[in-house]
């Protein structure tokens, strides 16, 4: 269980995250949605420990996040950031092996090597294991980082936590769906606590066990997609009107029209 208790973060007097409280349970996929500047990334960084809460508490199980060393934290929670830029030539396998850094000293053990092989297989990057990371496409690089981040929390033991900031941004639609499906299955099977930030409301609605809607730093709604993605919420927060479109044989999906009262701002 990962708990945010009234966490607040201020930057120059402005509340980027404003007393947000939420509980994240093992085995379930929690997705955070919200418009640009809603505080999603900052909230995720507070959960991961990179950004400290000015007030409020983040707790892993019973223990406050501040009671963990960086190393102790890294053994149980992995973080995928929005944008990873590497300036040096590294093999894909080397990048993935870094995910095991919290778990070994010196050289990786046979178990660590096996984990790396498994996660690379799981995310379909094993064929690139010996290629230079810098020569990969954006989507391929992102899959390499999935593998790295999953490697960090692959083996059972303590409760495990996975925090993902916009994991889908460079993926084509095939890999977006596949990633969400695999992630959901993995969370259930392995009892992972998963919190992710995504932009695509359709994907969020389709895969989330629980949605959180952030707007201007505040938690506007949380719960099932029916509770959260209501017409009123979507119009108020995203400034668009949702429309449910269904076609024979295809999945129902949300379409968005620019809300009339805001149209003038963009022309």
């Amino acid at each position, binding site marked *: 269980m990962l708990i945010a208790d009234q966490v607040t973060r201020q930057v120059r007097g402005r509340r980027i995250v404003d007393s947000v409280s939420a509980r994240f349970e093992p085995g379930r996929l929690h997705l955070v949605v919200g418009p640009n500047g809603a505080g999603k990334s900052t909230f995720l960084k507070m959960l*991961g420990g990179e950004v400290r809460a000015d007030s409020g508490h983040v707790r892993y199980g019973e223990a406050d996040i501040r009671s963990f060393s960086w190393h102790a934290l890294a053994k149980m929670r992995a973080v995928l950031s929005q944008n*990873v830029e*590497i300036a*040096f*030539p*590294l*093999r894909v396998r080397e990048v993935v092996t870094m995910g095991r*850094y919290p778990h070994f000293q010196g050289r990786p053990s046979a178990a660590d090597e096996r984990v790396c092989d498994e996660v690379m297989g799981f995310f379909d990057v094993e064929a690139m294991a010996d290629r*230079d990371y810098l020569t990969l496409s954006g989507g391929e690089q992102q899959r390499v980082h999935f593998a790295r981040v999953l490697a960090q929390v692959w083996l059972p033991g303590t409760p495990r936590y996975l925090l993902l900031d916009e994991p889908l941004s460079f993926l084509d639609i095939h890999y977006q769906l596949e990633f969400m499906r695999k992630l959901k299955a993995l969370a259930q099977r392995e009892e992972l606590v998963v919190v992710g930030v995504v932009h695509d409301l359709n994907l969020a609605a389709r895969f989330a066990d629980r949605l959180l809607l952030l707007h201007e730093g505040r938690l506007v709604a949380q719960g099932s997609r029916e509770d959260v993605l209501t017409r009123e919420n979507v119009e108020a927060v995203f400034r668009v009107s949702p429309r449910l479109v269904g076609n024979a044989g295809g999945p129902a999906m949300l379409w968005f029209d620019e809300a009339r009262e805001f149209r003038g701002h963009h022309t």
Partner: protein
Amino acid sequence: MPARPRADPYAGVIPLLVLALVAVAVLSIRLGAVPIGFGDMASALAKLRTAPDALDLTERVFLDLRLPRALACVLVGASLGLGGVLLQALFRNPIVEPGLVGTSSGAAFGAALYFVLGAALKFHAGEWTLPVAACLGGALSTAAVLGLASAAGGYRESTTAVLLVGIAVNALFLSGVGFLSYIARDPQARSITFWGLGTLSGASWRAVALLAVSTGLGLFWSLRAARGLNALMLGEGEALALGVDVKRLKLVVIAVNVLIVAVATAITGIIGFVGLIVPHLLRLLRGSDNRFLLIGSALLGGIVLTLADLGARVLLRPAEMPIGILTSAVGAPVFIALLRGRKSRIE
């Protein structure tokens, strides 16, 4: 699933570099104004124990000049190579030099102050006055860079601020050096210029001892930081997420860099391009694992500097060229060639 046997891409390089370093060092000892044979070396080492008063001229040249100089070359080259890896990894930028945080320009300023005003100062430490002045200058300018950078906010990663402030502080201290050369009398100005170009001619056994301590400590602490630096290649947030105490890592890396670069610069003057090119070359050849790069760059730095010193002593024989002229003259085109052919060969 059985683990596939996989080849270590870094295998074999380090032993090769060790052999090359020994070969180059021996070559450098043998060649010079007075050629020295293996027999001279053996007899000199034997006499050192039994009859130190019976050493002949050749043996004395070997023991008092060539051997400490060769060792100093190896140690200074190793320091510059290590410093290059450390700062390139810290700034996540492959074209950063160890002098970037202001250490060497500050050292040059300290040295120039000593040359111009040294006679007027009450402070004297014998043959150590120049190195001490340079070390103080290096430490001072580095402290200035770090202090000013921490006050300059607004950058996503604090290293960007250090980089920019470093450029400014370097320019400031070099203008100070320029001013001192301008007001200096001719011989003093000449000393400043020579020191700015670097030379190993001051390599004494005491200098070797000091370098051995700084380089040894530097290598030890760098290797302990190597894994953290690997994680840092992904970015500061990722390194934190992987359990690296990034604040502490930066502190250790900068402290180690100041120690090794300030000591090396204080003894030899400014030697450019070695710290830039050596890690770059190894990275292109094999990859970026810092555990490999640190050891490899220490060895290759020693090789490159030894060769450069050999060239500096032999090319204009019997005169001796400042080594910095050679490293920059050879280093600059090599660097440009590396950039032009910038295609990683790790596949």
